[in-house]
C-alpha cells in the first residue's frame, strides 16, 4: 500500500470515529430533550383532564344539591366525567383508580404503584410515569394523583409517543449523514494535501531510479526545507560518491586498457619485423650476402628492443608487486653508487656527470631508489649531445630530500610535458627506439616515487635541457611517512 493511501485511510478512520462519537453524544442529548418535552406535554394534558374530572364531580354534587358526595357517588361521577373524555391518536386510554382499584376498565401497562396501591404508605409516590413499547409503538403511561370531594383518586393515562420517536430517528439519520459527508469531504481534502506534500517523493524516487540506471550526474533540487529536502541532500551525497567511485574505476580500467593495447603494439611491432625478415631469409633459395647481413642486423636490433621492453616490463611489475621494506638509505653514498653504475654509458657518450649531495638519509628501498636515479640519469643521457654535462644534486629542504637531475640536451616540447609520464609514451619514437627506449622509464620512475610517498616535477625548455626535481620524505622528519604499497 502506498504511503499516501496509508495516511489517507488512517486519518479517515480517525475522523469517522470522532464524528460518530460527536453525533452519538448529540443524539443522546436531543433524545433526552425530546422525552422531557413528551413528558411535559403528557403531564399538562393529564392535569387538564384531572381538572375536568374534578369539575365534573363538583358539578354532579351541585346538581344533586348535596353538601357532600359519598364515596360511591363520587366514584360514579368521576367515572362518568372521565369516560366522557374522548380518546385520540395521542391519548390512547385513560382510567381512574382509587386505592389500587380500577374504577372502570383498567389501563394497559398500569402497575400497582400507579394504581395507587402504595398511596397510604409513609413515602407516598407523587406523579408516576413509565415508557414502554406496545402494539401502538412507543407509549408513555402516566399516573397523576388528585383529590375530588375529599376522596383520593389517580388518573392513569396512556399516551402514544411514537411521533417523537420517529422525529428523533429522522434527526439521528440526518445527523449521521451529515457527519459522514463531513468525514468524506475532510478525507478528500486530506488526499489532496497529503499528495501535494508527498509529491517530492515522486521526484526523489524518479531521480533515484535514474541514478541507479547509470546517470550518475543526476542531482536532486528540493528546497522545501523539510525532511524530504534532507533526504534529497543525502541522496545527492550518495550519488556524488557513487559518481566519483565509478569515474575512478573507469579511469583505472581505461588506463589499464590503454596500457595493454600499447604493450601489445610495442611487442608486435618488433615481432613483425623479426618474423618478416626471418621468413624472407628462410623462403629464398639464395640471399645475397649484403641482404642477409641487413636482414639479420634488423632481426638482432628488433630482438634487442623486445628484450629491453620485456626487461622494463618486468621491472615495472616487480615494483608493483614488491614487498616493500623501507630502510634508511644514505643519499651521498647512493649518489656515488649510481654515478659509478652509469659511468660506462656516460663515457661512451662522452658525457660528464657532476654529482654532489649534502648529508641526508631517506627511508626507502635501496634498490628501487638506485633504479629511480639511474633511470632519470639515463633519460638525461639520451637527451644530451656528445660532450655534454649532467648534474645530480641533493639537499635536505623542509623535511624533504630535494634531488635535482639536470641535463643540457634537447629538452621536451611544452605540449608533450603532460604526456611523458604515460607508459609507452615517447616524444620521438624513432630516436627513442634507436637509443633502446621502450617508453616505460618515466612510468617506472613515477611508480617508484609514488610508493615512497614522494613526487617529482619536470621543467623543460626545447634546446636548453630538462630539470627534474624529485622530492622524497627525509628519514625521521616525522612529517611524510612513506605510504607503503598500493593505496
Amino acid at each position, binding site marked *: 500500500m502506498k504511503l499516501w493511501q496509508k495516511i489517507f485511510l488512517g486519518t479517515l478512520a480517525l475522523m469517522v470515529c470522532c464524528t460518530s462519537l460527536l453525533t452519538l453524544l448529540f443524539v443522546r442529548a436531543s433524545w433526552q430533550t425530546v422525552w422531557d418535552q413528551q413528558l411535559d406535554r403528557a403531564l399538562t394534558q393529564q392535569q387538564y383532564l384531572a381538572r375536568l374530572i374534578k369539575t365534573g364531580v363538583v358539578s354532579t354534587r351541585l346538581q344533586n344539591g348535596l353538601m357532600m358526595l359519598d364515596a360511591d357517588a363520587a366514584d360514579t361521577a368521576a367515572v362518568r366525567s372521565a369516560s366522557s373524555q374522548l380518546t385520540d391518536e395521542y391519548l390512547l386510554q385513560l382510567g381512574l383508580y382509587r386505592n389500587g382499584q380500577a374504577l372502570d376498565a383498567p389501563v394497559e401497562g398500569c402497575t400497582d404503584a400507579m394504581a395507587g396501591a402504595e398511596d397510604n404508605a409513609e413515602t407516598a409516590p407523587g406523579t408516576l410515569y413509565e415508557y414502554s413499547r406496545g402494539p401502538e409503538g412507543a407509549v408513555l403511561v402516566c399516573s397523576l394523583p388528585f383529590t375530588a370531594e375529599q376522596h383520593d383518586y389517580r388518573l392513569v393515562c396512556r399516551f402514544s409517543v411514537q411521533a417523537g420517536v420517529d422525529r428523533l430517528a429522522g434527526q439521528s439519520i440526518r445527523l449521521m449523514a451529515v457527519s459522514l459527508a463531513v468525514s468524506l469531504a475532510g478525507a478528500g481534502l486530506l488526499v489532496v494535501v497529503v499528495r501535494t506534500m508527498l509529491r517530492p517523493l515522486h521526484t526523489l524516487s524518479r531521480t533515484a531510479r535514474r541514478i541507479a540506471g547509470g546517470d550518475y550526474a543526476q542531482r536532486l533540487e528540493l528546497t522545501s526545507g523539510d525532511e524530504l529536502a534532507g533526504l534529497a541532500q543525502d541522496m545527492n551525497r550518495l550519488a556524488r560518491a557513487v559518481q566519483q567511485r565509478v569515474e575512478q574505476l573507469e579511469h583505472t580500467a581505461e588506463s589499464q586498457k590503454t596500457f595493454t593495447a600499447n604493450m601489445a603494439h610495442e611487442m608486435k611491432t618488433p615481432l613483425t619485423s623479426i*618474423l618478416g625478415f626471418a621468413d624472407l631469409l628462410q623462403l629464398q633459395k639464395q640471399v645475397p650476402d649484403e641482404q642477409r647481413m641487413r636482414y639479420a642486423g634488423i632481426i638482432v636490433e628488433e630482438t634487442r628492443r623486445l628484450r629491453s621492453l620485456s626487461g622494463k616490463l618486468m621491472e615495472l611489475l616487480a615494483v608493483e608487486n614488491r614487498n616493500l621494506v623501507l630502510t634508511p638509505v644514505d643519499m651521498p653514498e647512493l649518489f656515488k653508487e649510481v654515478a659509478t653504475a652509469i659511468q660506462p654509458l656516460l663515457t661512451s657518450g662522452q658525457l660528464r656527470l657532476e654529482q654532489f649531495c649534502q648529508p641526508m638519509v631517506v627511508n626507502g628501498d635501496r634498490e628501487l631508489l638506485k633504479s629511480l636515479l639511474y633511470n632519470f640519469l639515463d633519460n638525461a643521457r639520451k637527451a644530451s649531445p656528445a660532450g655534454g654535462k649532467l648534474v645530480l644534486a641533493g639537499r635536505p629542504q623542509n623535511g624533504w630530500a630535494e634531488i635535482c637531475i639536470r641535463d643540457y640536451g634537447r629538452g621536451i616540447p611544452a605540449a608533450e610535458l603532460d604526456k611523458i609520464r604515460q607508459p609507452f609514451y615517447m616524444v620521438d619514437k624513432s630516436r627513442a627506439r634507436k637509443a633502446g627506449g621502450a617508453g616505460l622509464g618515466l612510468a617506472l620512475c613515477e611508480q617508484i616515487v609514488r610508493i615512497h610517498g614522494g613526487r617529482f616535477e619536470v621543467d623543460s625548455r626545447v634546446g636548453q635541457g630538462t630539470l627534474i626535481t624529485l622530492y622524497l620524505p627525509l628519514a625521521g622528519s616525522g612529517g611524510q611517512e612513506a605510504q607503503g604499497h598500493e593505496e
Partner: protein
Amino acid sequence: MNQNTQQTAHILVVEDEAHIAQMIEATLQLGGYTCENCADGAEAVEKIFSGGYDLILLDVMLPGLDGFGVMERVAGLDVPVIFLSAMQQVTDKVRGLQLGAEDYIAKPFEALELLARVEVALRRRGKGRQVLVYRDIQQDLGSHTVTRAGVPVALSPKEFELLRVFLQHQDLALSREKLLALVWGYEFAGETRTVDIHVQRLRQKLGLADKLVTLPRVGYRLEK
C-alpha cells in the same frame, strides 16, 4: 621474377615503422610487385589521390592522421586497401572493413600470408595476374585451364590451386604447413601427407619431377 604476361601491380605501403616498411617492400618484391613507401598519413592521402597505385597497404597506427582517417578520405577512389595493424580487437577489424577496406591483416604476419592476401585483393579487382607462366606451362586463373606446350592438362581443383601457389612463388622454399595453409586453408586440419600426394601428381601430370624439388625436412621448391 615471374614470367608474367601482364604488367606488375604497383603498391603503396603506408607504414611508419622503418623496419616493417623495409620488410614489406622486400616481401612484395619477392612476389613480383613494385612498391613505394610512405610514413605519414597526410602524405599518403596526397599520393593516393595523385593515382598510379593498384593497391594500398595501410598501417592503422600512424603519426598524425591515422589509417582509418586516411581510409575515410580515399574511400571514394576505387583503390583496394588492405589494413595492417597490431591492434587485434574485433572492433578495429570491423571498423576497417566497414570503411571499405578489402582486407585486414594482423601484425605480425608471415611473408607468404601477406603475398597471398595481396594476390587475392588484386585478383578481386581484376588487377592480379590472370595468366601464370613457367617454361612451357601456362596457367590461366580466369578460365581455370592449364596447358603444357599448348596441350590442355586436366587438374583437380586442389592440384590447380597448388600449382598456382608454386607458380606464384617460384624459387621459394615452401614448407608443407605453408602449402597446406595456402591451398587448403588455415582452418584445414589435414595432414602434410596430403601435400606430398598432390605434389606427386603435379610432378607426373606436368613433367616437373626434376624442377619441383623436395627440400629435406622443409618442403618443396619450384626451381626456376
